[in-house]
């Protein structure tokens, strides 16, 4: 039976109500938080459901891994609350609809998932991917669908995800190296939370990169640079992978600058928030985030998620910080060139 496995007894014992008290946008005291959370658990109306920015962070804050965010999304959908305008949601639902267009490269036991992000066509090249080059799945038929967590549509996820998992399974894939946290989080957190069985082993690409760099031994040179790391919303679904950022950085001589908005207190790219809540909040988040990078003396802003890249690369560059995807950062360390770059946009008139 596919459905959210949410254990309300865990919430009864919870002292901190961290899902709401640690929320970066709500500023709730513990009592209010407890009251509102209980309403959500009980399926009653709560202003939290309207106010939620869908930043995913409460998934990480819950010490019991009880999936508070998935419950919020369930409740939003049940109550017809739209975290974003309806046409935006419609656009997303339509654009990722499976239509039988299977984009598959060389079929192998170990394959890369490009999710639905064309950036990886640019990023995946060179020595780091010698072993896996060409063994790729991409597009609607392999799209993890986690994005609908932003749009109060877990129903789309539960409807499509089993088939997506089956599509990947049918290829005979044993290990799926996920290049996007959204996929990794789907297969390691979202699918189990809904009782969807995953017949392959999801591997986070950080782990893959780390092992590749280890394998390349002395060809890896220390970059000796300071970088701010831009955490993305979906990394909240798999917070254990954050440590791998530090591991990779230490291999390639990158200092992760200490700053206010990193680790558990990271700010997301805010473009989803712009679409849902409007420009004032989004602009404020982006400004605080980038100012913080500047203040911390970062030379680079290292991206994990291509969507964050789309949102912020241009903006950090304007502040004199070099944007780079973590795959490209690893390439720099082995003497290869950065492949994902900002388009040199001349003003077209």
């Amino acid at each position, binding site marked *: 039976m596919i459905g959210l496995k949410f254990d309300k007894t865990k919430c009864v014992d919870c002292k901190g109500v961290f899902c709401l008290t640690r929320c970066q946008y709500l500023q709730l005291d513990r009592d209010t938080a407890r009251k509102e959370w209980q309403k959500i658990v009980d399926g009653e109306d709560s202003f939290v459901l309207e106010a939620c920015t869908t930043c995913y962070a409460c998934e990480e804050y819950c010490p019991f891994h009880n999936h508070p965010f998935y419950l919020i999304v369930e409740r939003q959908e049940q109550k017809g609350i*739209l975290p*974003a*305008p*309806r*046409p*935006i949601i*419609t*656009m997303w639902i*339509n*654009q990722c*609809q499976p*239509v039988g267009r299977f984009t598959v490269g060389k079929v192998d036991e170990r394959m890369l998932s490009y999710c639905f992000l064309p950036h990886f066509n640019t990023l995946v090249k060179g020595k780091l991917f010698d072993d896996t080059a060409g063994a790729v799945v991409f597009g609607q038929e392999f799209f993890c669908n986690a994005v609908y967590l932003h749009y109060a549509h877990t129903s789309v996820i539960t409807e499509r995800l089993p088939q997506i998992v089956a599509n990947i399974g049918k290829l005979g894939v044993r290990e799926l190296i996920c290049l996007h946290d959204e996929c990794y989080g789907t297969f390691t957190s979202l699918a189990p939370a809904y009782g969807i069985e995953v017949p392959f082993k999801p591997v986070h690409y950080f782990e893959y990169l780390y092992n590749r760099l280890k394998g390349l031994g002395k060809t890896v040179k220390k970059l000796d640079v300071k970088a701010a790391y831009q955490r993305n919303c979906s990394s909240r679904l798999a917070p254990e992978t954050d440590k791998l950022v530090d591991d990779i950085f230490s291999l390639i001589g990158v200092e992760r600058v200490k700053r206010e908005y990193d680790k558990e207190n990271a700010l997301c790219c805010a*473009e*989803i928030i*712009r*679409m849902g809540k*409007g*420009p004032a909040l989004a602009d404020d988040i982006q400004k605080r985030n980038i100012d913080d990078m500047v203040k911390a003396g970062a030379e680079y802003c290292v991206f994990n998620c291509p969507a964050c*890249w*789309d*949102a912020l690369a*241009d903006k950090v560059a304007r502040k004199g910080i070099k944007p780079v995807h973590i795959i490209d950062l690893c390439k720099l360390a082995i003497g290869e060139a950065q492949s994902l770059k*900002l*388009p040199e*946009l001349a*003003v*077209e*008139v």
Partner: protein
Amino acid sequence: MVTTNAIHESLVKIVGKSYVSASREEKYFYARDGGLMPPHEPDFVVLPRTTEEVQEIVRLANREKIPIVPAGAGLALTGLVIPQKGGIVVDMKRMDRVLEVNEKARYVIVEGGTTQGALKSYLQKHHPHLRHSIPDAPPSATVVANAVIHGQGRLAHQHGFNSDMVSGLEVVLPTGEVCRIGSCSVSSYWFSKGPPLPDLSGLFLGWFGTTGIITKLGLKLYPCKKLRDVMVLLTDKVELVPDILLRLSHTEMVEDTVISAQPLPLRFRGTFWIMTYITGDSDEELEFKRKMVWDAVWDYFQSRDVGFISTSPEGKAPLLSMPSKDTTRFADVAKGGGFQYAGPITPIEKFPAFIRKLEEVAAKYNVFYGSTTRLIGSGHCMMFSFSFSFNRANPDEMARAKRALDECSKFALEEGAVLWKPDVDEQKMIMEKMDPNTLELMRKIKRLLDPNGIMNPGNWEMR
């Protein structure tokens, strides 16, 4: 009647041997355009280089009563330069110079065959703070032909039709005289096509070359700001579109507004995409305009009826490029190399009705459709396109697309729209609906200017 050979020789004398053809191949190509109108072959294709050569060709044609059709790139798609009665096609594209830019009076003078692409490039290189209203036709479209068909470009919202931006003409009349129209008829400046004189430009603009051949054209230029951005608004409620357009226009901050609707790729299905272009000389200016646009539809945003899509710089690039290659790509969505659209000029309140008609007709004739609408003036009207793509290798599909277009045109006319760049059949429909006294006035003008009826016959032909 002199022989074909003699005419050929005369044409060779005028433009030189290399630039006259009566060969099967040129006749074949110039007999048709990329659209769905039936072909008709010319007897000759000539490529003049000067106004004097054009005059000579016209005099010859007038003397021998041979039809003559001035042609740009043939991109109207409605067969406006198909020589319906044979004769001489005058391909103007060797007359391709940019003659003068007056920076302080903000106009340019181009020759009769200068392409939109060449003008864009010239201004970018030599006068980067000036621009013209670039249409989304391919860059091979000529400036003159686009003005003659009342084309619209990227500045249509602010400044109207491209023909509104004409600031002077040099025309070879059907009887061979060269005539200047506008301020340039009494002054060396080309700043006005009419005012404060009687505006004679109307004798040529919109006439599809049936009253003369434009050999030079003055065009107004407009400030070109340093920065440009596009905001993409989505709604799924068709009935809101006219009001959204008026609100955007009310800001007086928007340079260009284009609405697109199409069922494929899937991301477009079920929503209307409103591309809103803004410009600025600084980030602050752009930011202010962005805020104005948000504010204009804020209540629709709160009611969740209108959203803004976040777009990366890379995603914006094709929307910002001028002309838009995506417009042309529509021709090959079905791997078939063809599309045509009926583009009625209509009040914006008609948007919902026209969309419904488009969907209905596409389903009825089983053809793939799309629509790109451009706001003209401050909401004074819009060009609504009923676009159908077809496979050029599938005659049945082409016939269905043509029937779909005809039905949409008829519907639009009944709804109070006026057909844009109408084909010869649509011209007849318009003239049937036209005030008889207006039609009579047109007839008198045509007879006066072109007594032998040699100019692009078949078009605007009043019985």
